[in-house]
């Protein structure tokens, strides 16, 4: 619960420290999605924690010793905000002074992210993609079991569905306001995506905001409706396409005689080439991040819904396995 506040607070930190882009990301990620995922997992695994069995003294001791040593180590660090710290001596001046001539993008963060360190970013996107695949393979429900379950639930659990409808009815104000808001959120995500060259923004942030809008839709109108609107296999395809787009920009620049991800050769004019390259890879990043976030959320929520249905159906009959697990839950 407090993770949300934590995310907001750390984002304000970053604002104070002049890191606009980072604050942007943290705002979108830390406040929204990370808290939601934690909550979803908590509702699936039970809220209570077992009482501690061993004394935390040893852990405290270890923590204090490590912390003391770390603080002792910081005594040699450069002062906060000092201008001549070693960090600022090597590549940063080049980025700050020359990026306007070399890349032609006012937002230095975007130019470093998209052009100077594009290879690094490619790796990050690949990691995100892999994590999405991991969640998909861990949490996606087996298809045929789900379909049979759906049939059963639709035929036998009519009371359940009516209850759900009632809940949607009760949130009518919410639904209508969200209906108004969601297009604005999507539009704003697009603005962030394409304005990233000039202000804070870019593919990562835009992807998260876009996904957040779709998650809002899924939360208010039910997962099944959202699944029908955003077909899951298409979303998986989009995740892959984003990464492929990114990599293929690099390959195209290879074919044009430059290095991998060297955008200068994409157009006759190097600056124009840089613009095209950054635009394309930001688009790729946005695709992948959006799709992966949606995949993660849909799988968590789908797994949760299935679990709830199972417990609702099994609890009156006191099925053996479920009873076991609920007993353990109560025991914790």
């Amino acid at each position: 619960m407090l993770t949300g506040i934590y995310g907001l607070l750390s984002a304000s930190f970053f604002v104070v420290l002049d890191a606009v882009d980072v604050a942007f990301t943290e705002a979108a990620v830390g406040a929204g999605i990370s808290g939601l995922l934690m909550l979803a997992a908590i509702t699936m695994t039970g809220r209570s924690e077992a009482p501690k069995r061993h004394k935390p003294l040893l852990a405290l001791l270890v923590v204090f010793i490590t912390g003391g040593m770390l603080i002792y180590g910081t005594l040699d660090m450069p002062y906060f905000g000092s201008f001549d710290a070693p960090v600022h001596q090597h590549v940063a001046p080049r980025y700050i002074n020359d990026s306007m001539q070399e890349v032609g993008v006012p937002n230095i963060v975007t130019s470093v992210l998209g052009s100077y360190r594009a290879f690094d970013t490619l790796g990050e996107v690949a990691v995100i993609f892999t994590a999405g695949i991991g969640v998909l393979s861990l949490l996606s429900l087996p298809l045929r079991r789900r379909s049979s379950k759906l049939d059963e639930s639709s035929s036998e659990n009519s009371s359940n569905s009516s209850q759900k409808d009632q809940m949607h009815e009760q949130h009518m104000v919410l639904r209508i306001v969200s209906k108004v808001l969601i297009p604005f959120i999507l539009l704003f995500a697009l603005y962030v995506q394409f304005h990233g060259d000039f202000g804070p923004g870019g593919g990562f942030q835009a992807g998260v905001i876009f996904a957040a809008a779709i998650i809002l839709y899924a939360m208010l109108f039910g997962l099944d409706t959202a699944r029908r609107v955003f077909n899951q296999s298409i979303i998986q395809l989009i995740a892959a396409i984003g990464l492929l787009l990114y990599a293929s920009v690099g390959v195209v620049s290879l074919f044009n005689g430059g290095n991998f991800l060297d955008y200068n050769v994409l157009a006759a004019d190097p600056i124009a080439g840089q613009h095209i390259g950054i635009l394309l890879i930001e688009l790729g990043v946005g695709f992948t991040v959006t799709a992966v976030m949606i995949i993660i959320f849909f799988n968590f929520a789908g797994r949760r819904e299935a679990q709830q249905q199972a417990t609702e159906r099994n609890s009156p009959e006191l099925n053996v396995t479920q009873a076991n697990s609920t007993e353990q839950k109560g025991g914790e």
Partner: protein
Amino acid sequence: MSLILEIGSGLCLLLGSFICLSGGVGILRFPDFYTRIHAVGVTDTLGAGLILTGLMLISPDGLVLLKLIMILLFTLFINPTASHALAKAALRNNLKPVLDDSSDKGGDKPSKL
């Protein structure tokens, strides 16, 4: 002209800060959830509106003004909706409001948890 704008924005900011502060005290001091939601409602709409208006009056150019108006609109949309949903959910889950029974105990201080 600019002087008038600045004075106006200063007034708006001061008033907004005051309302925010009173709302902050309210959320801490009020006895139960439903009274607290009132405090938050005042802070989130009037306070935020005043502060954003104050900023609008000193905004340097059109895009900034537009963004501020967007923020104001969203706040005015979102916060009442969220409060409404919260109150409804709380009521549905049988959270009883503290009714006025402390008065016959001789004006006890509201219990602060």
